[in-house]
């Protein structure tokens, strides 16, 4: 691919990323809190390539979400969709009429017009596709967890490492590229919340997790998440994102994981638990409590990091800080908007639509560039293709370590017991 002359695009993108969070403090002191700007993800300033032609391999629900989101990413084109199930290709033709459709990923990889692939197949199928994609010279975005075994995760990570000079690799740990999560990460790492006390996370969503198809053979394949032989369970498929965030925010790896699992609602012959909990002890001695269930939807998803000076809560795209009454004043919180949660007052770290409406602003006027975590992740992938390759915010090492963490968490849940973590497991040799 020929190199283009240097342009201003690199610096514009650099500025966009560093100024986003600092912009949050500019719009009215009673709305949002001025917090540390998110650190820049990219540093190169030379645009080497223009638009990116992308193939999505795996057109299940998440593959479809990726396809629609890519439609809003500048310079990205969904050039091809691949799925081994004809019904999915029919859906692809309906929703993405401009994209070519394939039922064999190897045909996609042999197409020179395809720059990169997004691997969104069932987890246990990632390895071969990713390795073949690297061999074909394609840039790769691989969904998280990368693999259902540590061996496969290591194989993917090592291949990414071997190709890092010429090919982009990014894993689908969305929050590493999300400006809100990155800004709060800086906030926590700056010590503003004091010493870590404990943290907790949850993901509650009442659903059976079953998939159905008129084709019985396909139906068995579609229900891989409920197949104990290949599934990493709730901890792998869902928990990985929360476990990863905890590790990232604390900047520590786990030293032990104690797991609990049960079937609370969906007693339909499945062997994969519909409710899973872990208690994780981190290197610094603090514990993280994670609850995941398919049996109750109350309070959906949230993450709470308790510190000796303040507690941070993250819900959807919003964050709040709850200060201890004896914590030192930071100054700006006097002006910040506060939301009441029962008896506690949370200092809003991000504005929301209700507040905006009270000021007669439309929802999109607060941040006309507001986007989902998935959009930010896919944008980062495309930008890395254009300006890189450079180490991704969610690269192979983060992908590998979070994968190990999630697999071990799932093992602890299955055993209903404790696993002492060997630091060597997290090393990519």
């Amino acid at each position, binding site marked *: 691919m020929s190199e283009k002359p240097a342009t201003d695009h690199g610096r514009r993108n650099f500025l966009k990323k560093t100024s986003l969070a600092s912009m949050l403090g500019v719009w009215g002191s009673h709305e949002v809190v001025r917090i540390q700007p998110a650190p820049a993800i990219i540093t190169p300033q030379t645009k080497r390539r223009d638009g990116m032609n992308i193939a999505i391999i795996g057109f299940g*629900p998440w593959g*479809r*979400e990726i396809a*629609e989101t890519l*439609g*809003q990413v500048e310079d990205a084109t969904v050039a091809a969709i691949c799925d081994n199930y004809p*019904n999915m290709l*029919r*859906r692809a033709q*309906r*929703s*993405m*009429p*401009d994209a070519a459709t394939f039922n064999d990923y190897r045909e996609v990889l042999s197409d020179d017009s395809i720059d990169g692939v997004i691997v969104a197949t069932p987890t246990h199928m990632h390895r071969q596709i990713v390795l073949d994609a690297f061999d074909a010279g394609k840039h790769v975005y691989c969904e998280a967890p990368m693999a259902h075994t540590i061996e496969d995760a290591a194989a993917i990570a090592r291949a990414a490492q071997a190709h890092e000079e010429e090919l982009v690799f990014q894993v689908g740990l969305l929050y590493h590229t999300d400006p809100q999560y990155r800004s709060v990460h800086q906030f926590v790492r700056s010590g503003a919340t004091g010493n870590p006390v404990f943290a907790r996370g949850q993901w509650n969503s009442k*659903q*059976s997790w*079953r*998939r*159905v*198809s*008129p084709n019985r053979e396909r*139906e068995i394949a579609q229900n891989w998440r409920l197949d104990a032989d290949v599934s990493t369970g709730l901890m792998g498929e869902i928990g990985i994102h929360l476990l990863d965030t905890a590790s990232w925010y604390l900047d520590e790896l786990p030293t032990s994981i104690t797991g609990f699992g049960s079937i609370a609602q969906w007693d*339909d012959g499945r062997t994969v638990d519909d409710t899973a909990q872990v208690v994780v002890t981190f290197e610094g001695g603090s514990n993280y409590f994670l609850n995941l269930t398919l049996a109750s939807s109350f309070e959906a998803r949230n993450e709470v990091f308790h510190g000796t000076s303040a507690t941070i809560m993250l819900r959807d*795209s919003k964050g709040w800080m709850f200060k201890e009454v004896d914590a030192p004043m930071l100054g700006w919180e006097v002006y910040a908007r506060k939301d009441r949660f029962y008896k506690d007052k949370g200092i809003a770290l991000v504005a929301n*639509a209700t507040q905006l*409406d*009270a000021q*007669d602003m*439309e*929802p*999109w*006027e*607060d*941040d*006309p560039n*507001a*986007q*989902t975590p998935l*959009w930010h992740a896919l944008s980062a992938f495309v930008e890395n293709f254009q300006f890189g390759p450079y180490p991704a915010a969610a690269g192979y090492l983060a992908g590998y370590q979070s994968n190990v963490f999630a697999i071990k968490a799932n093992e602890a849940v299955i055993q209903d017991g404790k696993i002492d973590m060997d630091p060597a497991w997290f090393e990519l040799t």
Partner: protein
Amino acid sequence: METVRVACRAMATRFEIILQGEDPVRLRAAGEEALAEIQHLEAQLSFYRPTSALSRLNAKAAQSPVKVDARLFRLLQRAKALHAQTSGAFDPTVAPLMRCWGFVNNTGQFPSSQAIDEALARTGMRHVRLEAKTRHVTFEQPGIALDLGGIGKGFALEEAAWVLRDLGVERALLHGGTSTICALGAPEGEEAWHVALSYPDEVDSHTPESVITVVALRDEALSVSAEHGKAFVKDGKTYGHVLDPRTGWPVDGAAMAAVVATDATATDALSTALLVEGENGQSILDASPTIRSAMILCHASDTTYDVYLRDLSVQPELVRVNQVVPI
């Protein structure tokens, strides 16, 4: 034959799907996938979420053309066609007027003539340009905003029904907030799904006397719009939240309008338009070839209604019906 019910909250209402078939586990799985599609569409089409594709349009389309995905573009094309079919009585750009009258989050406020004129200048589907070759959308007037709430539920149910059919479900009833209903096939042993339409002020009574008519649905959709909820009184006059997008003023069109057609997106839009037009809505029915039947309820007195019907019949001995007029 088993019956399974699944539900979720989306678009500020409760969506429910009733499925019939042999295997309840597989029925539930199919229902969940259909509900997931509804929630996905909410994320894409929400007026209130800054991250939705619609919000991106509203933020940027007045400055430069915005490319949208194929499904959203097709929906916008349908919205434009429905706007034309209803001679503007249905208009998804009505948000500035709703805000002007205080109906977005409050119970209403009486605006000045100037405010209405300014809001009217920012209303009108004619200002939305759709470029079919590139799927670009442009707003040719600053301040234009698309709010697809008037067809969102119907469209979501249509897409959910498509998912169910694709998964092999043959008998199901889907609804969003009970005001938009989509019927797949019919229940076991019956010709159709039967839906009772009650007087708008008796929807919660569930008595036989409260039922005006029963609609039989098979592979069809039904939407009901009614004048309820937000209203305020000024100088002895009540101003409801049903606005005529063409004049910018609340109307006393109809108390309730119901439409049956093959697609739920159309029934959603058309029931809204009939609420605006009231008894003059016959032209809308004549212009819409997919409408099978309709009912328009207009106030005859404080307690009675004039009922305008097309291909529907009322229950016998209705004391609250002043007259029945075929249209």
